[in-house]
């Protein structure tokens, strides 16, 4: 009994990986427990977008690049679903903990700040990729039905790179919102006034070339534009922005969000709502 009681404090190496792996596992189990809400609903949303915009309205839209509107829409839709779900996963995990009161577990258990950030981010990344996979699946079905063939991926490595960096960036953003938010109103305000405009004005549904030159310049201040176009370049080889600029913005955004998420875990609010 005496030996057993001293097991943990003497076995510090066990605190290096097991807490991180356990928290990551908990994050995955958490979203799988409500899979209808976390994976099936986004699949439904994407199907509706594809049906309304890609198939119905898309027939009357011509792009100068010669790419079909459906093929143009699919990468944007995949990005939107993945990034949005990554954000939702990490932010709701922290917010739910604040609501239930178990937020203090992050403080009283022997986690390092990096362990918390990485576990929450990777949990969000996995949900983002799960949603991305089903979105790609249903999109390919639509493309096959409408165009008679699957939509191929022109640059797979670039495609994977932007998916990873974009999802991690928005997962970190979710952590920041989760830890710094003091009430649900603040969260809703960030979702409604920041995230939603960024997503819808980031070029998911339209090309920059269709915008007035003034709005084209304004849009270039939206970091999401670069993730969407990076992924679009990866899939169909077409982008509204310079691919190297997109690379710089994506890396810069991910690093900035990661550093801010570290700060938010250290200085955030652990008070129960």
């Amino acid at each position: 009994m005496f030996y057993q009681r001293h097991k943990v404090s003497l076995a510090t190496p066990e605190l290096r990986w097991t807490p991180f792996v356990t928290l990551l596992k908990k994050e995955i189990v958490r979203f799988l427990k409500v899979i209808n809400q976390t994976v099936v609903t986004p699949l439904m949303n994407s199907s509706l977008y594809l049906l309304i915009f890609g198939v119905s309205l898309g027939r009357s839209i011509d792009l100068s690049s010669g790419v079909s509107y459906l093929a143009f829409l699919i990468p944007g839709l995949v990005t939107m679903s993945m990034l949005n779900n990554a954000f939702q996963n990490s932010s709701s995990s922290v917010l739910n903990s604040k609501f239930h009161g178990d937020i203090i577990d992050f403080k009283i258990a022997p986690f390092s700040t990096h362990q918390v950030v990485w576990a929450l981010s990777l949990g969000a990344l996995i949900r983002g990729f799960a949603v991305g996979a089903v979105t790609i699946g249903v999109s390919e079905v639509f493309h096959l039905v409408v165009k008679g063939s699957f939509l191929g991926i022109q640059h797979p490595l670039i495609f994977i790179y932007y998916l990873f960096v974009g999802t991690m960036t928005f997962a970190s953003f979710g952590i920041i919102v989760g830890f710094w938010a003091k009430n649900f109103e603040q969260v809703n305000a960030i979702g409604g006034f920041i995230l939603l405009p960024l997503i819808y004005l980031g070029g998911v549904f339209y090309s920059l070339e269709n915008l007035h030159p003034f709005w084209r310049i304004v849009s270039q201040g939206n970091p999401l534009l670069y993730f969407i176009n990076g992924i679009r370049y990866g899939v169909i080889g077409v982008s509204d922005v310079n691919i190297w600029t997109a690379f710089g913005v994506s890396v810069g955004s991910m690093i900035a969000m990661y550093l801010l998420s570290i700060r938010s875990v250290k200085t955030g609010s652990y008070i129960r709502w």
Partner: protein
Amino acid sequence: MLTHSFFNKIIGKYVIRLFMPSPILLNHLVKNYGKVQAVQDISFEMKEGEVLGLLGPNGAGKTSIISILTSLEKPTSGEAKIFGIDVALEEKQTKASLGFVPQELVSHGFFTVEEVLRFHSGYFGLADNKAQIDYLLNKLGIYIHKDKKIRELSGGMKRRFLIAKALVHRPKLLLLDEPTAGVDIELRNSLWEFVRELNNQGTSILLTTHYLEEAEKLCDRVAIIHLGKLRQMGKTAELVKNMTQRQIVFQLHTPTSSLQSPYVKSQSDKQIICQIPAGMELGELMGKIHLDTKVISDIRIKEGTLEEAFLNVLSEA
């Protein structure tokens, strides 16, 4: 087996104590929230293997001290050490060696009792902890509820669950912040019984409670804090002795003449009520008040309680 367990107990409780740093050492600890000084220059040391009661009225600073020990809050100045390690410098080490039962009941969303305990074990580096989890669930009488979500448990069951959660990693130090608030008497007794058992196995326990009668029975020592300052600290029995008076009631079958003594608080034809320092014996009192024993039909003695000592300490503050 008996010998082995006996030696473990002796080594754990007495020999190791000589070499182990204190479970808790507070050194000029200060915690301010804006202009509010919640903890004002508090210093004390907890002894290995003891049950220490941290007592005080609401807002005294008890939860602030516990929040600093659990790393939920940073001290404004001063230091708090757990087993010789500063909580502000080596959080991981100090967190791994303590278990914490918070005052507030918590829920865990979608997760069941067993899932939460499994995850919590992992947070403390224990990937496979089924034996300890099952032991705690059985010991605390919640094994049959292991597949229920936390929100489906009653208040008392939630308390038991929180204690199990705090003990999954077999901590050497257990912090109990009002663990029996709002709990019925039967469950309170069983929880205190379990706390005693843990203490007998060598776990040091810091406890805050408003049930002073129970604290008196359970705590080896108590520290009374008020308005952020440490007012009194010492062995429970000694503190009660020093800070209270004994009440002696003489029932009379024959009225007696008026007694002139500072120890006599009231006198009637049927009874005389005296108050004496806790160190004074009945014989000494009898000698001082010159009461004829032939008129006495009965004597009732009421010893001082921790509650009275507590109130006296607060009134002196």
